[in-house]
């Protein structure tokens, strides 16, 4: 390995087995207080329903648990360690004050069914966040119930469907650009729609003429990501909206990329009828290794009657409450009110930013992406030269000539101390390198990233093997995913 890595260096990492391998009878990490009511005889109370044995559940002490999970944690990369440029994922800083306020007694221990009289604090948070998100999106109404982006899509399309049905015009199809994320078509199918693909044009944008040709009375909505998954703003968005509306269709916006827009432009102003947000992307709630998220859905007033129940309202006496009686509602999409803990964090983020901070955040996110683009142009193939917003998508075309693909480059990036970019999509770019730095990266980190990517490109020319065998510095080398899927081992068993 000729090239030095400037950001990362190796250090000792602790080995750690599975927790079951540390278990032995009689160890404990728990202690219950004495009962203040009479003991009971479980067998007498439960009869045949009594459980006698808890199988292979572990028995370990507290220090072992602390060490176990702390050691595991050190095997993860994280935003707290450095740049995490996963395109479409918006891996930004997760403020710590958010974690403090969500744990305040009344919020952490609030029961979803406690009387509204003593739920005014939670309701105020829901209302304030709703108002902020409505203002940010330029829409008219919102539900915070969906638990993630895909769940928001489901909720949004259910409302689209209810809207058309209320007009006696149940439509059959959803148009989805070929650049879309996999959840979009998967969601459309769950709502009973058939999916029709929409081809992108040479600029990576919606082909407006093709859309006009494909749009007809059978189409319920177009699901559009804007900026799209190439990080490109759909410049003809007003025409797109017009085409949809002229034939009675709706414009759905996947708001995964709102980090490029907040404070600069509002989807409600450019013709969007319904959209979801990802509080776990744009609004800084932590990804937590895959969730939880929160996917609020904002709508124009014509869709408001169809919002999931319950809907938060201000009562005549000025107190806040929930309204359940909404005859046109699509119904509930989950129990209770949504991932409330994420609402608290997202609102804390908005309050920490204010209007000026939100705008600056967006500007910095777009600045960072363009800085990377500039730094890597020519080194990596840029399949679409259309201006980038918050992310930039290169391809592995130049490196593929040496047999090195985007996943190989990504794995090599790990050795340089960075998390890889997104490799899985957009499908319209074969061998995509989808890079989203977010606003959270200082110039120094971006410079190191560009340097690392250039260095890897040189390695591909001089010593492709190094890249193909990467990563070299992790505790495990490349893992055999094929074997994992062929003969799935999905749980530990004694003696295994």
């Amino acid at each position, binding site marked *: 390995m000729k090239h030095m890595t400037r950001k990362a260096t190796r250090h000792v990492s602790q080995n750690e087995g*599975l927790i079951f391998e540390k278990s032995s009878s009689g160890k404990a*990490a728990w202690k219950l207080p004495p009962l203040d*009511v009479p003991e*009971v005889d*479980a067998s007498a*109370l*439960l009869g*045949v*329903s009594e*459980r006698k044995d*808890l199988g*292979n*559940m572990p028995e370990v002490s507290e220090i072992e648990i*602390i060490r176990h999970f702390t050691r*595991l944690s050190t*095997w993860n*990369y*994280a935003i707290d*360690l450095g740049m995490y440029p996963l395109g479409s994922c918006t891996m930004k*800083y997760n403020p710590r*004050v958010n974690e*403090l306020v969500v744990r*305040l007694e009344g919020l*952490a221990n*609030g029961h979803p*069914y*406690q009387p509204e009289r003593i739920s005014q604090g939670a309701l105020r948070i829901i209302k304030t966040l709703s108002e902020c998100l409505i203002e940010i999106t330029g829409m008219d109404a919102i539900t915070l119930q969906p638990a993630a982006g*895909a769940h928001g899509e489901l909720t949004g399309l259910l409302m689209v469907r209810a809207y058309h049905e209320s007009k006696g015009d149940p439509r059959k199809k959803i148009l989805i650009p070929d650049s879309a994320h996999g959840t979009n078509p*998967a969601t459309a199918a769950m709502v009973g729609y058939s999916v029709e693909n929409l081809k992108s044009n040479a600029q990576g944008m919606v082909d407006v003429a093709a859309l006009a040709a494909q749009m007809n009375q059978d189409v319920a909505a177009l699901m559009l990501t804007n900026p799209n998954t190439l990080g490109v703003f759909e410049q003809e*968005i007003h025409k797109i909206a017009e085409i949809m509306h002229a034939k009675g269709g709706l414009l759905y916006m996947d708001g995964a990329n709102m980090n490029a827009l907040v404070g600069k*432009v*509002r989807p409600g102003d450019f013709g969007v009828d319904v959209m979801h947000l990802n509080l776990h992307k744009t609004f800084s709630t932590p*990804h*937590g290794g*895959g*969730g*939880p998220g*929160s996917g609020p859905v904002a709508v124009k007033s014509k869709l408001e009657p169809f919002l999931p129940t319950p809907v938060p309202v201000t009562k005549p006496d000025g107190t806040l409450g929930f309204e359940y009686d909404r005859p046109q509602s699509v*119904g509930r999409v*989950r129990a209770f*009110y949504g991932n409330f803990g994420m609402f608290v964090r997202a609102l*804390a983020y*908005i309050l*920490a930013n*204010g209007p000026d*901070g939100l705008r600056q*955040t967006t500007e910095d996110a*777009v*600045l*960072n992406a363009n800085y990377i*683009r500039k730094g890597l142009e020519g080194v990596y193939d840029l399949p679409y030269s259309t201006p980038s917003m918050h992310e930039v998508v290169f391809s592995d075309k130049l490196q593929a000539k040496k047999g090195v693909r985007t996943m190989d480059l990504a794995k090599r990036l790990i050795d340089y101390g960075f*998390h890889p970019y997104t490799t*899985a999509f957009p499908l319209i770019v074969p061998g995509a390198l989808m890079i989203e730095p977010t606003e*959270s990266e200082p110039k120094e980190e971006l410079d190191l990233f560009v340097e690392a990517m250039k260095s890897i490109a040189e390695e591909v020319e001089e010593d492709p093997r190094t890249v193909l065998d990467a990563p070299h510095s992790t*505790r*495990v080398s490349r893992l055999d*995913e094929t074997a*994992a899927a062929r003969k799935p081992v999905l*749980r*530990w068993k004694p003696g295994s």
Partner: protein
Amino acid sequence: MRYLPKSPADRKAMLQAIGARSIDDLFSPIPAEYRLERDLKVPRQMAESEIVDWFRERSRENGDTYATFLGAGAYYHYRPVIIDSLVSRGEFLTAYTPYQAEISQGTLQSIFEFQTMICELTGMEVANASMYDGSTAAAEAVMMAVRLTGRRSVVIARSVHPEYREVLTTYAHHQNLPLSTSSFKEDGRLNLEELEQSITPDTACVLIQSPNFFGTIEDAATIAEIAHKKGAMLVVSIAEAVSLGIVEPPRQADIIALEAQSFGVPLGFGGPYCGVIATREQFVRQMPGRLAGQTTDRNGKRGFVLTLATREQHIRREKATSNICTNQALVALMVNIFMTIYGKVGLKELAKQNLAKTAYAAAQFSKHAKVLLSGPPRFNEFIVQTSEDPYAINSRLLGHKIVGGLPLKKFYPELGNAALWCCTELTTRSAIDTAVGLVAESERSVRSAREEVDVQEVAP
């Protein structure tokens, strides 16, 4: 803005490097007529201390000092301190989905351990990495049964959490899955004769909850037999995970949809919680959600990856088993740590304390009011029927800083003045005695008011 790591000089240098005159150049792809030329109308930028104060105020307005008898799908259990110590580690908190396995082994191994423990506790062979919550897990489990059986209709026990049933109704609506409900008997258990009749050759599955919404433990073995005899599957929803410490799991079920909130997840006004689906190995390819699996690296070393991704939306798009992508990973980690702390012995002892508190409370209440649907074994919850409207009693209880049981009129009007009470290991005897005292007082005053009326009517 304190989260932004750039000086004005940095920004200037970067713009120069890009070759842009100003930041506005970078936003020129947005048509001018749509650009926002004003400040967003959101609250002004606040200092950290102001943010903490604002939320403290909200916390105080949110019943921060009340004891609670509410359960109904959200349970107040003790959360050991180390759960938050560990999930607050940035390496867990601020990591993405573990798609890049080599630098995500911590998350992946913990999911593998989670899946293992869920299997041990539920008696199933495979469990996924999590679903949004118990309600969506139940709905997706039902849809899974529909795919597995090739049948379309679903029989749902009326004793399943009413909001879970609402969610299933929403999900099923546009997939044209006919739903029917099966009622419960006087003793709180499912009416088996009625159930047997409602299963048709088109029934994909029967969905029950056990312990059910009323706390009653269903006879899952018999229900499974009835369903299987007619070629239908049994899907069991479990909303109170602590019950698994002492209650035999429904091993005869084909799919279990669990809400694991009881295992170390804060009530948090209803979320985020942690749904999980567990099933038999033969059904795994129709399972929704992520799965971690064991494999080896190039040197033969054990490691873990996300696997069987061909079920998922990023590969299969409209043919995927579900649209779920982001799940509840960090909450599943809380659950994982909780299960590790209590383990084989502690979970049982914990569940026993829950049984004892509930038995005591139900016995005390039954001295003064009617405890409905009793007979079969129960866990943590029971229904008290009073003469007075439970809302009125609850409102007096609030004066004692106690939140009473959940009035059931909204969900089960036929039960009259009934409320669903819940005890856990955290319910104190003194809170139980106070609540029982108020209910007793209410019954006495209703009775004496009635006697007064009787006396007046008798008087000439």
